[in-house]
């Protein structure tokens, strides 16, 4: 698969992930106890032998640079291989921030053309899945398609959350011609949802992007380009039936993580052979996990650098997390180097890196499910979000659906009891 160039759209921020994406793009949000979301497409590319990849970053791309580097952790180093970081640069206009997914690729067309690929594979960096792109590439070639899009089956009622298509039965379970495509239709949807994985014939891509750039639009592949191609180009749908995990909203992100904890997990990290950058956050320099004499760990993921003296139930602990004696962590996801002090309780909460929960504090307290005051649509199922480097004082009580903004220290908390739905900033 030497003539395939992959482009990963990894710059997106999305407000839906709130404080988790204040300092990093969605693609480098930590996932699954040691990974970043972008590790999944990067590992898929490696296993699919697609070894040239441009990573399009924009929003707070430092952690993306740190993480991907030259791609050595995914074996992208070599004469015909490589990972290339593509960030906005001042171009024809004074400020050329990427205006949308299509515009991001358009602004890097010089890079793409220089690589002279036979197929351009466009991915987004924010899904959790295992796919061998070679099957889809073969289908694309077999059909002599101008564009092939990966889809997976949904209930028609869910159409308003996705780009959806009507696909004919040309090749049965494999795929078929895309008859119609709609972006998040409020009504009369279709049963196939786009996975935003695109294979383009390069000449067609160049023409379309050129045209798109001249017109006022949102400059998105889904909204502006696909439906305009129907009838004029050979557009195929490739059907995908395996696990597909979303991380677009807090609920989805939390749920997708929890899929790792099932008895036969839907996300089988070992058989998926996921790789990450073991230098990022000093993953490889940390000693193995240590469980103390009073530790109780059940249905949880733990990694090097964790120290557990208390109780951990149904949770995911990233490297360096420390759970002191008599502390309890339940249904939660704790990013790197969090500390839950003695007697602290953390229930159904996501804590970003370097958070400290003080002695006897209760995070995720009570049954009141009042939605978040600022983001009622986003945070209403009881999950709390604690931003990076927050130090929660001892004996604090926090309800549910709360958001705590990054870097708040003990003295910044005026109360010792916060009801559900509060945002502390």
């Amino acid at each position, binding site marked *: 698969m030497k003539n395939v160039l992959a482009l990963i759209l990894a710059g997106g921020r999305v407000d839906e992930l709130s404080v988790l994406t204040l300092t990093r793009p969605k693609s480098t949000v930590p996932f699954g*106890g040691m990974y970043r979301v972008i590790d999944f497409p990067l590992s898929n590319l490696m296993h699919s032998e697609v070894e040239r990849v441009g990573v399009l970053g924009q929003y707070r791309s430092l952690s993306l640079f740190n993480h991907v580097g030259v791609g050595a952790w995914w074996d992208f180093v070599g004469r015909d291989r490589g990972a290339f970081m593509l960030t906005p640069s001042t171009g024809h206009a004074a400020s050329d921030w990427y205006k949308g997914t299509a515009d991001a690729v358009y602004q890097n067309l010089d890079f793409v053309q220089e690589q002279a690929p036979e197929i351009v594979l466009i991915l987004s960096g924010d899904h959790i899945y295992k796919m061998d792109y070679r099957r889809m590439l073969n289908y694309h070639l077999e059909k002599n398609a101008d564009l092939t899009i990966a889809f997976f089956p949904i209930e028609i009622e869910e159409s308003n959350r996705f780009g959806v298509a009507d696909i004919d039965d040309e090749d049965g379970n494999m795929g078929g011609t895309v008859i119609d495509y709609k972006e998040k239709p409020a009504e009369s949807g279709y049963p196939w949802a786009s996975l935003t994985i695109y294979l383009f014939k390069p000449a067609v891509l160049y023409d379309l992007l050129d045209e798109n750039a001249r017109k006022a639009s949102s400059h998105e592949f889904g909204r502006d380009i696909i439906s305009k191609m129907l009838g004029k180009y050979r557009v195929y749908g490739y059907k995908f039936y395996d696990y597909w995990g979303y991380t677009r909203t807090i609920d989805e992100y939390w749920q997708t993580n929890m899929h790792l904890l099932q008895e036969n997990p839907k996300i089988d*990290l070992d058989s*998926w*052979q996921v790789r990450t950058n073991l230098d990022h956050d000093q993953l*490889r320099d940390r000693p*193995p996990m240590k469980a103390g004499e009073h530790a109780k760990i*059940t249905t949880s*993921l*733990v*990694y090097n650098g964790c120290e557990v003296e208390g109780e951990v139930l149904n949770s995911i602990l990233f490297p360096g997390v420390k759970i002191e004696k008599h502390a309890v962590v339940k249904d939660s996801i704790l990013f790197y180097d969090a500390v839950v002090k003695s007697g602290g309780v953390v229930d159904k909460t996501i804590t970003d890196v370097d958070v400290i929960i003080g002695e006897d504090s209760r995070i995720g307290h009570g049954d009141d499910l009042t939605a978040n005051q600022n983001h009622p649509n986003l945070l209403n199922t009881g999950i709390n979000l604690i931003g990076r480097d927050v130090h929660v004082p001892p004996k604090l009580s926090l309800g549910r659906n709360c958001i705590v903004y990054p870097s708040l220290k003990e003295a910044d908390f005026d109360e010792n009891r916060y009801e559900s739905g509060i945002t502390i900033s």
Partner: protein
Amino acid sequence: MNSTLVMLLAGGVGSRLDILAYARAKPAVPFGGVYRIIDFTLSNVMNSGMDNVGVLTQYKPLSLMQHIGTGEPWDFIGRTRGAKILPPRTGEKESDWYKGTADAVRQNIDFIENRDSEQILILSGDHIYRMDYSELIKFHRTKRADFTIGMMLVPWEETVHFGVGITNNDNRIVEWEEKPEKAHNNLASMGIYVFNTEYLLETLRIHQEHDFGKNIIPAAIELDRVYAYPFDGYWRDVGTINAYWSANMDLLDSKSGLDLKAWHVRTRISEEGRLGDRSPTLVSPKGSVINSIISPGCRIMGYVENSILSPGVFVGPGARIVDSVVMHDSQIMASAEIIKSILDKNVIVGENTVLGDGRVDIPNREKPHHLSEGLVVVGKGVEIPTNCRVGKNCILQPGLTPEDYPGKEISPGETVRPRQVEE
């Protein structure tokens, strides 16, 4: 500290470690879940700010060479830094195997001469300890010594295994006994030597003997300034099965002084052809882990207490692992029980099988001095059938298959080895 060149002697056979050092040099024996023994010395070198290391290998060097590679996990990479593997080579004479510690260094005099250094630090790769060698070098310089030896007090009954020195008030060594039957002091050599480079080169030219402890030191204290650098921290020679097991168990005792985190021990995460990284360890609903060290990639559905698990260990439902060291990718099937055992890599323990059963007072019949404290040692790749009982002080030799077992009961003190293939 660029003026210190490190020579790391990593050729040791480690015969008292028995089957753990069967296919690897002693410094390459896994330790503490993700480490190998030599990581402690390499990390000390790194943490002391030194970055030029020659590693002298001889016995079964393959896994050691793979592990060290270019030394990049310890940051020995760059124009002026480096870790060089120095195996024996054919020289002027036909076969130049290293005949002893001094001989090994002598055969690499060209390596030393090619690098600018003021002093040579000679270390061995088979001890578990944390030392800041820059303090040792400072001591050596302050004393204007020709030769300084890292030394510590050991229990009197152990002096027979060591070089033992007597010092004056200034820490200068005035008498030396090599592995004495009856020692006059209990200040023992840790096998850590600092030489002024010129002095070492001169000494190795004058003396033709092969060993520092036996030959060079006794001669040197007569004529030259030889000093003892006193050390009193945690230090273990994990040269026996029991010492190896005890040092692993020290990792679980916060008062032992052995602290992986504080010591900044680094290793190469060996992936040996694995396509993906080891994932986080999953403890499932009926799994439980108490006072243990657990590496990534394990699946724990049973009970683990007071034990060290290397990456990729599977603990089946209802299985119990207690007081044990279990290395990479071993599988403990449902309801099996592992008591006070050391399992090398890729061991499979069948369902309902018990290791470490029964009475403790029967030492291993073939090696009563090596194995008498109740440990069971299982070699690499051994497969133990279901419903077996293996007694204490037993050795199961590497490569055993289920067909090799004499029966379901292995009595305490037995050694089981693969049957000879009949021609």
